[in-house]
C-alpha cells in the first residue's frame, strides 16, 4: 500500500468558483524526496495541508474524493492524530518557534503527544542531530540565523517522528547559505528510513537548490497534476511554459541543444552540468577555452550624479544591538544597485535610514539624498525624492480596488485631480495592471499584489526607489515581469536599489552590488567583480548563482569566474564548440 494516496481528490475554498485542487490521483511510496512544483496559487500548499487535515478542519471548504496517509483516511481523523504521521514545516520560521531554547522547542511537539519524558529526550537528541543543530541545544532561537531557525523548525517536525515530512517552500526567505543548510538537513531527513517520505514545494526562485535534492517531481498547474516523473523531468521545457522555470544549467544545455549540439542528456544539477561540459569539451579536444574578444564588457557605466551619500552611519537598537557599524556608500543616478547579505546583516536598517524612518545613533553620521540631509527633511518632502517598498504587500494594501490603491498616494499629497489621474494611469500601466483597475485588491493573485505595492508608490514619482525583496513570493514569470518593469523605471530616469536574497536576480539585473555582513559593507563593486570572489562571498553566507558557480567549477578549463547569466555561458560555450556559428 502506498504511504500517501489521493483518490479523485478535489478541494474548493469557500466563496471561490475555481477548485484549488481538481481530481488529483497520486500515489507516493516511502524512501524518497518528492518535489511539488507549480506557480504561486497552483495548489501546492493546499495539497500539503490536505495531508494532515488542516484542510478541511482548520481551513474549511468543499472537498471530494479521499486522502489516505499511512492507511488512514485523513478526513476521518483529527489533526492531533494525524500529527503522529505527518509534519509540515511552513515557509516562515518565525511563526513556528515557541520556546526559550532549541532543546525546548524541539521537545514541544513530542511533549504535546504525551510521550514519556525518556522518549521525548531520545527524540529531541535524534532530531537535533538530524537538523545539524548539535551544540545549539541551549541557544535561544532568536539568536539563530534564518537558516538555523528553519533547521530548528525542521528538527521540531522530525521529533514528531512523522512518516511524512512536508516542507512548504522552506528556503524562500533565506540567504543562499541558509538555503543550502536547510536543504542539507532535508537530505539527512530523507534518509531517515525507507518507510518515510519527504515532500518539498517550490515555485521557481530556488529551483536549482531543490533540483539537487529530489528524486521525483510532481508539477501542479491550476490545481491539476500535469507532470509526474523522475528528477530528469526538471529539464522539461514545460516548466518554462507554466512559469516555474528550469534550473539554470538545464536552460543552458537546452539552449545548446537548440543550437545544434549533440548532448547525452540535459543536466539538472551543477555536478551533472560540470561533467557534461567537460565531456563536450573533451569531444572537441578543447583543454582550455578561448574567450570571445568582447567577453566581460563592463556592466552599465555608472556615470550619473551622486544621489545618495552615506558616511560613517551607525545604528544601535536597544539594549545594545549594533545593527550598522560605520556604513559609508554612494549611489549614482540611473544605477540598479543590489544590496545583499545574510539575514540580520543590516540591509533593512540601512534602507530605513535612507527614507528617514530611523535616525543615526552617532552625531557625525551623514545621510544625504539628492544633496540634502535626510534628518533635516520632513517626510512629505523626502518621499518625493526617495521611497521604499516593503517586502510584504499585505502591509500596505487597503483600498477596495486597484485604482483606488494606486490613487491613494497622490490624494494624500493633495495633488490636483487631473495630475493624480495621469500619474495613477502611468503607474498602473508600468506594472502591467492595466485591465485590473476595478478588481478587488484582496482577490488579486500574489504576483499582482506585489506589482500593486510598487505601483502604488510610483505616482509620487520618487527619483530613487528602494525595493525590499521584489521577487520573493513570485514564481519565475512573476519575477521576470517585475524585474522588466523595474528596468523600464530605470530607463525612465529612476535610480533603483533592491534588497534581495535571489542571486539570479542580482546577477541578471544589477549594475552594482553592495554586500553587507554584521552591519558593515564588506564588498562594493560591479556585479561581475563581486561575484568573481566566491570565497569572500561565502564568508557572508552568499553563494553566486548556479551558472556563475558552473564557470568557477570549470576554472581549470579557462572559464571566467564571473559568468552572470545563462545567455553569457551559452555564448561562451558556442564560441568554443561551434566557432563558426557563435
Amino acid at each position, binding site marked *: 500500500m502506498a504511504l500517501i494516496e489521493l483518490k479523485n481528490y478535489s478541494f474548493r475554498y469557500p466563496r471561490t468558483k475555481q477548485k484549488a485542487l481538481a481530481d488529483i490521483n497520486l500515489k507516493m511510496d516511502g524512501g524518497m524526496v518528492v518535489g511539488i512544483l507549480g506557480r504561486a496559487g497552483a495548489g501546492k500548499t493546499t495539497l500539503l495541508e490536505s495531508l494532515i487535515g488542516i484542510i478541511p478542519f482548520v481551513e474549511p471548504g468543499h472537498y471530494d474524493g479521499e486522502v489516505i496517509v499511512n492507511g488512514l483516511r485523513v478526513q476521518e481523523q483529527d489533526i492531533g492524530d494525524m500529527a503522529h504521521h505527518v509534519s509540515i514545516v511552513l515557509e*516562515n520560521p518565525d511563526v513556528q518557534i515557541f520556546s526559550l531554547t532549541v532543546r525546548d522547542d524541539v521537545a514541544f511537539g513530542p511533549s504535546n503527544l504525551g510521550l514519556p519524558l525518556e522518549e521525548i529526550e531520545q527524540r529531541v537528541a535524534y532530531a537535533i542531530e538530524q537538523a545539524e543543530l548539535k551544540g545549539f541545544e541551549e541557544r535561544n532561537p532568536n539568536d539563530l540565523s534564518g537558516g538555523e531557525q528553519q533547521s530548528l523548525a525542521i528538527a521540531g517536525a522530525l521529533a514528531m517522528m512523522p512518516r511524512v515530512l512536508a516542507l512548504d517552500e522552506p528556503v524562500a526567505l533565506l540567504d543562499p547559505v541558509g538555503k543550502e543548510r536547510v536543504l542539507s538537513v532535508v537530505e539527512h531527513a530523507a534518509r531517515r528510513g525507507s518507510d518515510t517520505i519527504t515532500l518539498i514545494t517550490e515555485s521557481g526562485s530556488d529551483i536549482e537548490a531543490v533540483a539537487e535534492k529530489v528524486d521525483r517531481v510532481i508539477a501542479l498547474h491550476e490545481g491539476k497534476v500535469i507532470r509526474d516523473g523522475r528528477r530528469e523531468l526538471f529539464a522539461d521545457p514545460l516548466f518554462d511554459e507554466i512559469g516555474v522555470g528550469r534550473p539554470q544549467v538545464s536552460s543552458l544545455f537546452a539552449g545548446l541543444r537548440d543550437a545544434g549540439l549533440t548532448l547525452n542528456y540535459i543536466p539538472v544539477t551543477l555536478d551533472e552540468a560540470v561533467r557534461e561540459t567537460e565531456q563536450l569539451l573533451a569531444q572537441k579536444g578543447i583543454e582550455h577555452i578561448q574567450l570571445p574578444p568582447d567577453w566581460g564588457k563592463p556592466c552599465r557605466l555608472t556615470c550619473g550624479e551622486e544621489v545618495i551619500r552615506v558616511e560613517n552611519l551607525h545604528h544601535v537598537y536597544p539594549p545594545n544591538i549594533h545593527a550598522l557599524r560605520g556604513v559609508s556608500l554612494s549611489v549614482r543616478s540611473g544605477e540598479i544597485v543590489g544590496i545583499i547579505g545574510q539575514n540580520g546583516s543590516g540591509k533593512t536598517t540601512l534602507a530605513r535610514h535612507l527614507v528617514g524612518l530611523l535616525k543615526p545613533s552617532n552625531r557625525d553620521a551623514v545621510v544625504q539624498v539628492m544633496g540634502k540631509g535626510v534628518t533635516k527633511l520632513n517626510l512629505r518632502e523626502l518621499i518625493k525624492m526617495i521611497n521604499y517598498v516593503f517586502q510584504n504587500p499585505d502591509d500596505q494594501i487597503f483600498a477596495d480596488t486597484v485604482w483606488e490603491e494606486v490613487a491613494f498616494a497622490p490624494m494624500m499629497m493633495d495633488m490636483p485631480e487631473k495630475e493624480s489621474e495621469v500619474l495613477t494611469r502611468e503607474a498602473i500601466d508600468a506594472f502591467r495592471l492595466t485591465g485590473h483597475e476595478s478588481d478587488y485588491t484582496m482577490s488579486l493573485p500574489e504576483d499582482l499584489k506585489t506589482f500593486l505595492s510598487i505601483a502604488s508608490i510610483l505616482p509620487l514619482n520618487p527619483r530613487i526607489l528602494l525595493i525590499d525583496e521584489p521577487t520573493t513570493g513570485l514564481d519565475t514569470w512573476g519575477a521576470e515581469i517585475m524585474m522588466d518593469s523595474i528596468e523600464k523605471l530605470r530607463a525612465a530616469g529612476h535610480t533603483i536599489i533592491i534588497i534581495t536574497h535571489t542571486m539570479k536576480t542580482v546577477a541578471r539585473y544589477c549594475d552594482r552590488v553592495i554586500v553587507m555582513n554584521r552591519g558593515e559593507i564588506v564588498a562594493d563593486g560591479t556585479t561581475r567583480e563581486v561575484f568573481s570572489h566566491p570565497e569572500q562571498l561565502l564568508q557572508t553566507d552568499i553563494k553566486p548563482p548556479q551558472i556563475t558557480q558552473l564557470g568557477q567549477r570549470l576554472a581549470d578549463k579557462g572559464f571566467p569566474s564571473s559568468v552572470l547569466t545563462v545567455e553569457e555561458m551559452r555564448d561562451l560555450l558556442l564560441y568554443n564548440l561551434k566557432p563558426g556559428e557563435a
Partner: protein
Amino acid sequence: MAYWLEYESRDTPIHKGVQPLTKLVVFGCIGVLVGLWWDPRYQLLLVIPAILLVRASKLPLGWFKVVALAIVTSIYPVTLTALGQTNPQLFKVLDRSWAMTPILVGNLPIAGRVGLTYGGIMWLVAAELRTLVVATYAFVFIYTTSMAELTDTLLILKVPRPAVFIVSITLKLIPQLQRVVDHILSAQQLRGWHLHYWNPVKIVRKAMPLMKPLMRRAAMLTEQITVATQIRAFGSGKPTPTRRLTLNTVDYVVISTTVVLMAIGLYALVFHHAGLL
C-alpha cells in the same frame, strides 16, 4: 529588541535564577495585597520592590508608556468615583475630619453631596497606583518568562489546557502584531498618510489605511500560529511537561518570605484595618 509584552532572553537573576512558579507566587501575593489595600502609603511599599525588579530584570522602560496612557485616560472615570468619597463613614482608619476636608465640594440634586476631598484624593491615588503596581509585576513576569516555561508551569498547576493555549498564543501574537503595526505605519507614511486630526469621526475614517491591513494581517498571523501549533499536536491530548519543577534555595526563600509577608499583611488588614483608608 523585545517589543511590548515580549519575552526576551537575558542573563539577569530574574530570568535565570528564579523559577516561573516562584514568580507566579510573588505576583499572586502582590495582587492580593494591592487589591485589598486602599491606602496609597501601603501601596508604595509594593512599588519599592517593583522598582528593584524592573532594574534587576532590565525591563525596557518604554513598556510603561502604555501604563502612562492607561493612567492618563483613566483619571477622568476614576476622578468621578473619587467625587463620591464624601461620606465620612467610608473612612475607617484616616482621621474623618481630615479625610472630609473639602477641596471642591457641592450639593447636587439627587446625587447629594459630591466633590473632591483629601480622602477622595487618597482614593484616586490608590486606584492609579494599583494599576501601576499590577502592570509592573505583570511586565516583569512576562519579560522574564518564556512561553515554554509559562506553559509548563501552568500545566503543572493544573490550569486547563484551553486556557494555557489561549495565554500562550496571545503572548506569541502580541509582539508579532506590534511588528506588523510598525511596518504598516511606515508603509503608509511613505505614501503621504498621516493622522493629525482631533475630530474622532475623521480619525476613524482616516485610520482605515492602518486598520484594514492590520486586521487582515492579524487574521493571517492568528491562522498561521494556530496552524503551526496544531501541526505540532498542541491541544490534542494530555501533554508531558518537559521540565521538572525543581525549586532551588532562592525560590524557597522568595516564596516563603512572600507568603509570610502576605499573611502578616492580611492579618494586619483584617484585625487592625492596616492598609484601609
